[in-house]
């Protein structure tokens, strides 16, 4: 076969960036070397690790990590906050959405070190004790999910949206949540859940 004659099947097999892409986790790259300067109080970092300090769901966190760790890997694998899901690991689907200093970001597509000194809010951080956040409640009440795998990311995106626009129009919701895909296609009920949460917020304000 000439090198150029690539069948469709081989073509698809060898693609790297589909939504269900085959991107390798960055932490599978072998260990990273630290800049070395970050350590305070003369504390020695383990080989190939860097000190990271940040706030996660209101709690101060301080730990040593390889530079190649993504924020999603930090949350899930090191801090056991597995509410944040990783689906594409490529910045394309939104399942891993968390808030970084109040803004929605894809946690799979930034490095944990990018969050140094900042505040991270994950879906776990929305709970008040046992009590669900109004957005979480709305998703349950309005059936805003099917398999539920995209839901934590949808909720975090909606949270960021409602913070900025407490009374969103359906268009605001479509635009504000365009970075979150749902493979079950539950979009109409997701939008309905966000609207319902906004309404119940408005009632609570009165």
């Amino acid at each position, binding site marked *: 076969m000439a090198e150029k004659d690539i069948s469709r099947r081989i073509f698809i097999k060898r693609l790297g960036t589909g939504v269900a892409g085959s991107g390798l*986790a960055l932490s599978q790259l072998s260990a990273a070397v630290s*800049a070395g300067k970050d350590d305070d109080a003369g504390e020695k970092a383990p080989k190939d690790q860097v000190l990271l300090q940040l706030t996660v769901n209101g709690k101060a966190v301080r730990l040593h990590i390889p530079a190649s760790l993504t924020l999603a890997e930090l949350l899930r694998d090191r801090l056991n906050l597995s509410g944040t899901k990783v689906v594409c690991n490529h910045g394309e689907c939104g399942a891993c959405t968390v808030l970084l200093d109040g803004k929605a970001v894809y946690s799979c597509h930034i490095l944990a070190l990018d969050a140094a000194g900042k505040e991270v809010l994950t879906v776990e951080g929305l709970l008040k004790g046992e009590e669900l956040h109004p957005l979480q409640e709305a998703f349950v009440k309005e059936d805003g999910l099917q398999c539920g795998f995209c839901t934590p990311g949808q909720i975090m995106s909606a949270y960021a949206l409602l913070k900025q626009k407490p009374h969103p129009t359906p268009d605001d919701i479509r635009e504000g949540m365009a970075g979150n895909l749902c493979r079950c296609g539950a979009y109409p009920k997701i939008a309905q859940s966000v609207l319902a949460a906004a309404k119940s917020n408005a009632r609570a304000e009165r």
Partner: protein
Amino acid sequence: MNQQFEYINPQSLDEAVKLAGQGSVYAGGTDLLGLMKNDIAHPQRLVNLKALPELKAVERQKGKGLRLGALVTLNELAENEMLQKDFPAISQAAGSAASPQLRNVGTLGGNLCQRPRCWYFRGDFDCLRKGGATCFAMDGENKYHCVVGGDGCYIVHPSDMAVALLALEAKLEIYGPGGQRLLPISHFYVLPEDDPTVETVLQPGEIITSVIVPEQPVGSRSVFVKFRERSAWDFAVVSVAAALQVQNGAISGGKIALGGVAPVPWLDKKLNNTLAGTALDENGINKIAASALTDAEPLEQNGYKVILARNMIKGVLQSLAG
């Protein structure tokens, strides 16, 4: 796959330049991390520009125009009310790029320097742009590839910002080991015939510090429109940016830039020569649209882009006329 990298927060621009000589400049990371995950980039060192707050300013000085720091995020550009009012093409391009989450992180400088999205390039193919011997797109899946300016490699440049900035005749302030230089954005991108392995003229260690947009003449209007296959996030199939001056119903000056048609953000010569003096009525608009991409040589699957681009130009001119 065996990569190691160090992550450094430089203390100054000079330190960043020195360190970047043997590493990669790292801004939001939304493109670079994708390239690393796909085994296309293997930087030894990431020089984190976010540590340099001086690159985050948006300033406007009388007579000097607009200065946008390279680290301003796409979302900051999209939401800036001054830009929405006086440079709408910039805020429209920023607001239509990627998704809300990526716009919160992705920066202007990174957007201009992102690498192409050609699926062979991003996938596991050793193509010409990666130093291999052939282009797989030329006779392969080339629906989204270029219709003009391709020579050996047929990418389209993916940056929406570059198209808007080209129409506005912006300049890039670049700082590097040899000092500072100011380069019109029309000289920043490299065609495959000159070098199929790079997209820009940036040398190792060089950093874009800001983008300078000249103040537009009175009576100017700018607009950016983008056609994508779905209304959620997607790259442009074709985009059109216009920054035009209109007097007494006719165009008196300005430029139209095209995205999604060429390996670089594209200033079609014939199209731009047809603008000045042409009336913005039906005849004039048809004449201008027909002058676009007359030298196009589409590949097997992408001839539709020529028609699409001409129709989008018509739409843009109609909106500026109305």
